[in-house]
């Protein structure tokens, strides 16, 4: 028979677990309510307010591709094109094949470049067709299968011959997918990219305010970071021109979303 102290501990555990289960739907409802409220503000043309509402969801530590996408839309409508592109890129990492997302990115890139956007090579397009997590799962499934088949063969040596074909196939697939995963990681992290977030950013020949200006980049232009020095970034734009601009004029695509406390309006 259980001691009274054990009864109390068991009862407290049950009550605590029940409270968590009850609270979880309430938490989910809060996010959904915030999402719907943000969408309503967007429909009413209050884009700044809509953006703040989506940011409040991010401040809660939760996200999804749809939230990033909608936030990008609200920022674009609020004439903050650079920040819109940044959030579209975050959404692209979670949902790279979303046609609406790709259409919006293409729309903005055309508007900035004044024509068709620069073509990425086929290999990059292939790698960016899946998110990093999708590549990870794609590599791990055959890899695990291969290792488990190997383990099975070690455990039951009499099955080794029968499993040989599957083991080799699993190993080959695992190897290929591992290579693809590594390539995707390399594409994701090798070249740091950033988005201009000011109306006009003057790109200079050197990392000095006195350096002669070379060209200007508009809000929303995407650049590749080549070098950094003393608050300046050497960047390469879509037209393969490179120069130096101020670091505070861009936001890095690989940076975590700038979650800040959002004051209710």
């Amino acid at each position: 028979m259980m001691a009274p102290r054990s009864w109390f501990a068991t009862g407290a555990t049950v009550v605590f677990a029940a409270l968590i289960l009850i609270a979880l739907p309430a938490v989910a409802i809060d996010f959904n309510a915030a999402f719907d409220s943000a969408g309503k503000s967007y429909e009413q043309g209050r884009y700044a307010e809509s953006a703040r509402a989506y940011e409040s969801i991010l401040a809660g530590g939760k996200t999804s591709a749809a939230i990033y996408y909608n936030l990008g839309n609200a920022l674009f409508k609020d004439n903050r094109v650079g920040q819109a592109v940044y959030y579209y890129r975050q959404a692209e990492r979670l949902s790279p094949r979303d046609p609406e997302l790709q259409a919006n990115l293409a729309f903005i890139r055309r508007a900035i470049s004044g024509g068709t956007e620069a073509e990425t090579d086929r290999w990059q397009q292939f790698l960016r067709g899946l998110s990093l997590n999708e590549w990870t799962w794609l590599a791990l499934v055959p890899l695990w299968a291969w290792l488990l088949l190997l383990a099975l063969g070690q455990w039951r040596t009499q099955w080794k011959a029968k499993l040989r074909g599957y083991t080799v196939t699993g190993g080959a697939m695992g190897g290929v997918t591992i290579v693809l995963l590594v390539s995707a990681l390399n594409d994701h992290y090798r070249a740091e990219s950033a988005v201009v977030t000011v109306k006009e950013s003057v790109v200079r020949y050197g990392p000095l305010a006195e350096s002669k200006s070379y060209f200007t980049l508009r809000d929303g232009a995407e650049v590749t970071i080549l070098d950094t020095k003393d608050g300046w970034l050497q960047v390469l734009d879509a037209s393969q021109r490179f120069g130096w601009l101020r670091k505070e004029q861009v936001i890095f695509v690989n940076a975590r979303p700038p979650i800040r406390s959002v004051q209710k309006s």
Partner: protein
Amino acid sequence: MVLLLYCVVAPAAALTFTARLLPDTIRQGDTATLRLEFSGGSPKALPSIPAVPNLTFAFAGQSTEWSMVNGQQSSKMIYLFRVIPAQPGDYTIPAITPLVEGPPQTSPPMKFKVLPGTAPLPAAPQADLDKLAFFRLFVETNEVYVGQVFGVEMKLYFIAGQDVQLPNLRCDGFIANKTVNAQGREQVGDTIYNVISFRTVAVPVKAGRLAFGPGECNITIRIPTAAPSNPFQPPYSLKQVSPKSDPVVMNVLPLPRENVPPGFSGAVGNYSLAMTAGPTNLMVGDPITIKVQIAGSGAIDSVMLPAMEAWREFKAYPINSKSEAADPLARSGVKTFEQILIPQNAEIKKLPGVTFSFFDPQVKQYRVLTQPDVPLLVRPSDAAAQQPTVLTNITANTPSAPPPAKDIAHIKPRPGLLADIQPPLIRQTWFQVVQTLPAFVCLALFIRRKRQEHLENNPRLRRAREVGAFVENGLRQLHAHAGANEDEKFFELIFHLLQARLGERLDLPASAITQSVIDEHLRPVGWTEEKLVPLREMFQTCDQARFAPQRTSQELAALIPKVEAILQQLGGEPGRN
């Protein structure tokens, strides 16, 4: 076209005489002014005023006014008399007939009212105010097309005033531009007015019979009063008025729907087109600067350069534009567009010329201006030398390619699956650790298998382990037999343990092991008597027990340590695998 202007020609050189009493109502104690004006001549003598009981007329002076109206010079002789009432009442100043050259001139009788000293003066009737200031609206033409620019002139006429404000013009259905004002003087009837002219242009944005105006202009006018008793007080009062013009009905025609040229963007007027492009000898990837100038009359600021589908083989940068008005009202001017294009391949031989279309309201037809193509020599760059011809927008060649989007896609209605904001799985430590598990499992099973194979390939080792396990188990059973006082089983087990251990050590079958093994196999390999004696005794004890098995549990248990020592001595610790 009807040009609406108030244009009054000054009368001929014949003398005209007018008499005016300002004001015609005063309070007792104040005075009024009788103003006799002679235009085109002067009287032969000082005009005499007929006597009126209780009114005194005092000559206050004379002056001459010169004016130039529509190029004609004229002068006016003015005689002023102060009218001083002796008491309140209604008076009539009879007709005045001055002595002049030519036919006699007579003024009509004038009513004059003198109120008691504390009575309020009546407000100036609107008709009188309208004579002091009025506002007129003129348009260049009453019939225009949608988008056609037309001139507008608003004129404020006033005799004396100040603090003129910019007019408000009601123009629903039109877009009006900024105003340019000018001042002058005009004669309307027999009165010379100060005129402020406000000129602007307007553009109708919808068709139909639309009311343009009215216009309204605020001004503070001076209303003459009786001569004040205080000489420092001005002889007028100030009153803010807002004269309003009548609206003008405009007939706004819609643009013709037939023969609308492709690419027509709504420009109405009369324009010319010019285009320059350079450099024309360049490499793939080098920029060409295109300058397009559209000049002429019309709403030049709103002219847009049409989208050039023929330039899709070029990468285009955003267009910069600049307008320069040729006149203050911006009715005509030049708009310059500058765009940078970059050829994407060396197959390009020309830059298609710009096409601009507009509607000319003068001829009531659409017109299309086209610039000739600009020949280009595009050389392949080093990196592009081996590339085949690639269109920048392949989908444009597809017959079913949809037109480019004009706005971003709408927001998503559902948030989808929410997750914590965190790095990709591959970069999370716990995930990396989990991925090592199958490898460890595989490795562990591999090691296990190798050990098994090693055992299988070494019978003696296998036997040694089996015997070790047998001995370990046997020793436990000895305790059980001893506790149960099962001496027969006890000694039998000891015998089997000795057989197993000795057989394993000597690589002989266990069943072949007897006491004789001690002398036959152990002594020759160097076992000393010290080691052999306990073993021999244990064998003898087991033999004796067959015939005399009566022993107590304690006696049996006392033998177990000896058995353990013997077995340990024979080859290893009990239970070794």
